[in-house]
Structure formats: C-alpha cells, structure tokens
C-alpha cells in the first residue's frame, strides 16, 4: 500500500510514469477508500498504462478484461466446463450405477442423483474468467476493465455488484466474496456515456493531453536516447497539431512512437521533408494528414523566423536589444 500521495508519485516515477498530483491523489484515494477508479480521456494519454504501472509498483498481479460489443458474463465471469462435466459422467458411469443400485423406480433414481449433483456444479467444473479470478485470488490484485464503453449497457449493470460490494453471485453455487479486495481500474474512451449508477460507485479521473513541459518530461523518461532538441521540436509540433480539428488527435503514445522512430533514423533535428515522410506515425487518417501538412508548413515557417530573429539579436550584443526596445 502507498503511504502518502507523494509516495504514489515517487513509485509511479520509478515505473517510468509521470503522474501529476491529481492522478496521484486519485490513485491514493482509491487504495485507501477501496473504491474503483473510472479513468476517462482521449485515446493515447496513458489510461491503460495507469493500471499496469499501479500493479507493478505495488507488486500485484494485473488481471485484465478487455471489453467489446457483445461481451457477456460467460466471458467475463465464469463458464461451466460443459465438456469436462460430460467426460466425468462418462468415466464415472460405474460409480453412477453404484449409486443407483437398489433404487426402486425412476423417481427414486432421480432423487439419488439429485443428492449428488453438487459434485458436478462445484468450483471444479468452473472455468474462472477475469472477474472471478480477481475476486477469488489469494493475493491482492489489480483488476483492469479496459474500454468499458465498448461493452453493452447490460454488462455495465452486471458489474455493479462487483464494484460496490466486491462480490459476485453464481446461481448454482452462491456468492463469492473477495478474499482480498482488488484495486479496480476501469477505462473509457467516452464512446458512450456511462450510467450514473456505475459512475456513482467509482472515483472519476479525467486525463487530458499533457502540457508541453509534462510531455517533454515523459519523452525524457520513456525515450532517453532522443536528442533534447529533437524532443522539444517534436513536442512543439504535436502540441500544435492537437489544436487542429483532427479526426484522431495524436496522443502521448503517438508522440513517443514518433520520437523513437526519428531517433532510430538518427535524426537530430526536424526539417520539412522529414516531417512529411514520417507524419503517418502520428496522424492516422488521410484527411488528417493533409490538414497536418498545411499546419506544419506554417509551423516550420514560424520556427524559422523565430530562429532568424534569435540569431540576429545574439550577434551585435546587448546594444541591439535596446534598439529593439526603442
């Protein structure tokens, strides 16, 4: 467990994740208040990463449930191993007949079998899926329910029992209470609005695109091999791209991909051609690429004039500054 908010920040930094105080506070609260966290925000800002880093820094196992349209309890919670049950009945035929020895009539035989039926509906024949695994685990775990917005609304309702009481109910067996309360992280890309009931049970964390300095720090941490100049130029370009109305705004992961790609190409500093050639790593739609190209031309031009004026003022010394002021 974490000892303080600062401790969360340190631990996360140790796992190469730069957590702002806001993020750290929410994580700390989640661990102290035993509440699930719902993380929302645009794609590629490190929502899923939070859960991974959280698991690593606590040394817990990470259990992940990827949501998609049509996901149901069978895939999320448990399933009966139908084939195994059948196999056992076939192998144990003799035993079954033994039980039935001396039974008078069908009704009595059925009664006798019924007495034994919990053998077949026990945990032995249950195939635990992520949610049940997280609940029954002996050790504390981090449960990541990824992209919950992709799942259907019914599934969301089904999660409520788990999120508020940390228990799940299997009709044939009963209720499983969590042995260790798992830390639950849900992520959502906001493809649809979550229900109020779900939101009420969660702490809410909204992560937006990082500020310039923060993004630089992230690059330094995740791609230390990149040249400083390159890093700051890349961040400048990406930040200006985010202001455009793109179909898919580039996230931190795209920035990192781009920096890594450029470093691999042994690039020290950006220029127009290079940007055009490698733009596909950050912008994923054709229409966006076109728009980005235009913006970048503008950006490079501005950067050039800025550099030009810098050089001009550096030459003649402090006297020229005065001139400019006048």
């Amino acid at each position, binding site marked *: 467990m974490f000892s303080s908010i600062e401790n969360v920040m340190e631990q996360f930094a140790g796992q190469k994740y730069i957590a702002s105080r806001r993020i750290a*506070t929410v994580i*700390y609260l989640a661990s102290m208040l035993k*509440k699930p966290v719902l993380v929302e925000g645009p794609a590629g800002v490190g929502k899923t990463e939070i859960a991974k880093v959280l698991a690593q820094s606590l040394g817990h196992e990470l259990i992940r449930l990827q949501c998609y349209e049509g996901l149901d309890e069978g895939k999320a919670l448990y399933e009966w191993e139908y084939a195994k049950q059948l196999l056992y009945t076939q192998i144990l035929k003799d035993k079954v007949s033994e039980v039935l020895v001396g039974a008078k009539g069908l009704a009595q035989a059925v009664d006798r079998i019924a007495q034994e039926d919990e053998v077949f509906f026990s945990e032995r024949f249950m195939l635990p899926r992520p949610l049940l695994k997280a609940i029954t685990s002996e050790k504390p775990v981090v449960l990541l329910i990824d992209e919950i917005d992709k799942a259907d609304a019914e599934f969301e309702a089904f999660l409520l029992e788990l999120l508020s009481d940390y228990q799940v109910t299997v009709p044939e067996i009963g209720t499983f209470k969590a042995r260790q309360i798992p830390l639950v992280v849900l992520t959502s890309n*906001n493809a649809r609005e*979550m229900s109020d009931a779900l*939101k009420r049970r969660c702490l809410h964390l909204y992560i937006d695109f990082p500020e310039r300095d923060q993004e630089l720090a992230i690059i330094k941490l995740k791609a230390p091999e990149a040249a400083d100049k390159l890093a700051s130029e890349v961040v400048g370009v990406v930040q200006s791209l985010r202001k455009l*109305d793109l179909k898919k705004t580039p996230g931190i992961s795209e920035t990192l991909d781009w920096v890594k790609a450029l470093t691999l190409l042994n690039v020290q500093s950006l220029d127009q051609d290079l940007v055009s050639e490698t733009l596909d790593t950050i912008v994923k739609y*054709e229409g966006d690429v076109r728009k980005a190209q235009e913006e970048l031309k503008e950006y490079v031009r501005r950067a050039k004039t800025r550099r030009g004026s810098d050089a001009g003022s550096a030459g003649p010394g402090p006297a020229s500054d005065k001139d400019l002021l006048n």
Partner: protein
Amino acid sequence: MEDKLVEFANLLRQNGVRVSLAETLDAIGAAGTTGLENRDSFRAGLRATMIKRASELPLFEELFDIYFSGLGEIIKQAGQAVQDALSMSDQEFQKFLDEVEELLKKEGQKLSEMAKELLQNRSGQMEQRMRDAARAVRVSGIERTIEENYFARALARELWLDKIEQEIRELREQIQKLDFSDAMKAKLEQYLERRLKALDDIIRRYVRMEREKRDMRAREERKLSQLGDKSFYYLSDEELDKMKEAVTRLAQRLKNVLAVRRKHAKKGRFDIKRTLRQNLAYGGVPFKLRFERRKREKPQVVILCDVSDSVRNASRFMLQFVYSLQDLYSRVRSFVFVADIGEVTEHFRNNDIREALDTALKGDIINVNAHSDFGRAFRGFVSDHIGAINKRTTVIVLGDARNNYNLPHDWCLREIRQRARKVIWLNPESRNTWDFGDSEIGRYAVHCDMVEECRNLNQLYRVVDQLVVR
C-alpha cells in the same frame, strides 16, 4: 468540515451537477484521507468523488475557487486594502497590528469578540463568524441583484454591526484620552475607521459573490433550453457550433440503442437439428451446442437533403446530423438537391465536417442558386440512383416541399417507397404553413410512412426517439 462539504455539494446541485448522497459521503472520506494541507490534493479528491462528467469539470473548478477561497480571499483583500490606505509595508503593518493588540489588551476589555477579531485582523475566525451569520439569515437563498441590499442589511444585523460601530466609536474616544503621540493617535484613528469600512465592504462583496454562485447555473440553463427550442432559421454561428455537439450526441444515442437491439438479436434459439447432426460423431452425446444464427441487419439509410436558400440554416444543421450519422454507420448514402440531385457520400467521408458542409452548400456538386424543384430532383434520383434503395433501406427526406409550382412528380416518391423499407419526411417548416402557397407536402405525405415537423433540436430528439422505439 463536513458541513462545508455538504454545503458545497448543495451548491454543485444548484448548478446542475448531480451529486448523490453517496458521493457526498465519498467526498468527506476523500477529504479525510487527503487532508487539507495541500490544496491541490484536496481539490483532486473532491473532483474525483463528486464530478463524474468531463463536461462538468470547468464548472467545478470555478465553483471550487469561489467556494473554498471566496470568503477568505475577500477578507484578505479587505485587510490588504486597509494596509494600503495606511501606506505601510508588510513589516510595518505587522508591527502596527502588534501594537494594536497590546492596546486592546489594556483598553479593549469591553469590546465584543467580533470587534476584537476585526481589529486584530484574525481572518480565520472572522470567516467562520461570517459563515455562521450567513447561514442564519439564509444568504444562500439569494436570487436576484435587487435582493443584494436586503441580504447585506440582514447580514449586518446578524453580525451586530451597530454594536461594533458603537464600540469602536467609544474606543476612539478612549484613545484620544490616552498618552500617545499625535502621529500615533492619527494613525489609530485612521485604522479604526478603515477597519469599519472594510467590514461593510466584506459583507457587501460576500453577498454579491453568493448571488453570482447561483447565477451561473441559471445563465447556462437558460442558454441550453433556448437552444433546444430555437428554430433552425434563427441560429447564430456560435449556436450552430454548439448544435454540432448536440447533434453528434444524438446520433451516438441512436447508434447505442440500435447496438443493444442488435446484440439481443445476435444469438438465436437453440437449434435441435443442427445440434443432433453435429454430435452424431460423439455417439449422440451433445458435446457441442448449436444455436440458430441470425443475420446481422445493418441499418441502411439514404438521406435526401434540400439545400435551397429557403431552408438554408435548417439544411446546414441537417447536414451536420447526416454527417454525424455517416460517421457512425457504414451504410449511409447522402444526397443533396435543389433542382438537380447529387451524391455527397464520398465527400462527407473524406473531409472534415466544416469543409464538407461548405462544399455541399457552396454549389460544387449541384447548382444551389436554382429554384427548388422537388419533382425534378426526385425524378433525377429515381432515374440515376434508384439502385441505392432496397428492402432494408430507410429513406429520410429533409425539406420544406416548397416546389415553386413546378410539377411535383409524386409518383417518384411512390416508386421509392415501394422499394424501401420506410420513407420518413422531416419538414423544417411550421405545421401551420404546410400546404399553403407552393407547399406540396400534402401530396408527398401520402407516400411517406411518417411526416414530422422538425424545426428545432427538441423536435429532432422526439423524431429520433420514435424511430428507435419502432
């Protein structure tokens, strides 16, 4: 602290944020865990527990600032103003305050607590006292600017302002008799006077702040509800932008409902025949279960949108709706017409919304300056694009059906309806004016499954609801 958080939750509620009791309890728990030392952590804790929608975050930030520093800030500023009036530096002022404290110890036994706090600049206690008084006179009930005076007076009464004034006046007289230098006496005089004024100022500003808190919600709400009922014809550019957001949400909603329905339909009933056949290999023991599979039915939509001048704003908005729909569904085909008809599907798919709308309305695809001719447009559609329509297609026509007395060619619409699953006509004109003048809506309505007036966002919502329910 709990009181304060409960009150803050109330304030959020008054501003339209839904904060449940459970969430308030969480917030109290969070505040207990984060503590109050670090303001950012405290803020983050409340944010995570009370605000669950990204769109409500700005409001939260604003209210948090007002609520958790508002009064404190006002009192601090008032103190600063006194210091400025006396033109002292921070150190001098501090020293001066110490002297005042000495003085009060000797001469101020008769002073009430409130007066002492005021004169010694103990802002924390003053803040508490103000809050208690404000609760007693229910300042939080303030609604209008006109009430500010009334509440300010009530608050002053509750704080015994008269008594404080009286006491300070007596103190001033007392000081005159004391053995101080004239300069010091003058300074003290000025100080006392300023302090009294400061208190008055604090009360007024506090009342105003309270009113502003309530106001924010009212303003926003008014704006939004108006937007819903405002006719498309009278929207400003800014409102159109806002509308864009609403429309995207609407389209999304339509999709969600359809998605759930599709999911239900995906798994069919238990298929006995196929199960038996499949499991023959296992001696008839049903190892593998088989279910009937149902075909996924993707909604196919064909939209015909009138972009003539008479419905300009409406069509701009409708095209936004079409664009968002096309973003969500793969099988939407969009056409625009005035007299000629042209397809814009590809165009919408490859361009961003602003660009797409502009080209559709500018006349690159069809001549938009012609006089509307629905008959001709429909005939054009039937002869060139009738293949776009099959048994699963829903056809949506957006237009006012004002045909400039041209031939209506309503048989074309009949033809379309025979092939399509459903034909829906959305008319941006008020129902009262239908069938007057050159309006041919009655003639066309015969061939539609549904004809609805659709002049504003709320009506569009209703239409979508009906579509979904059926």
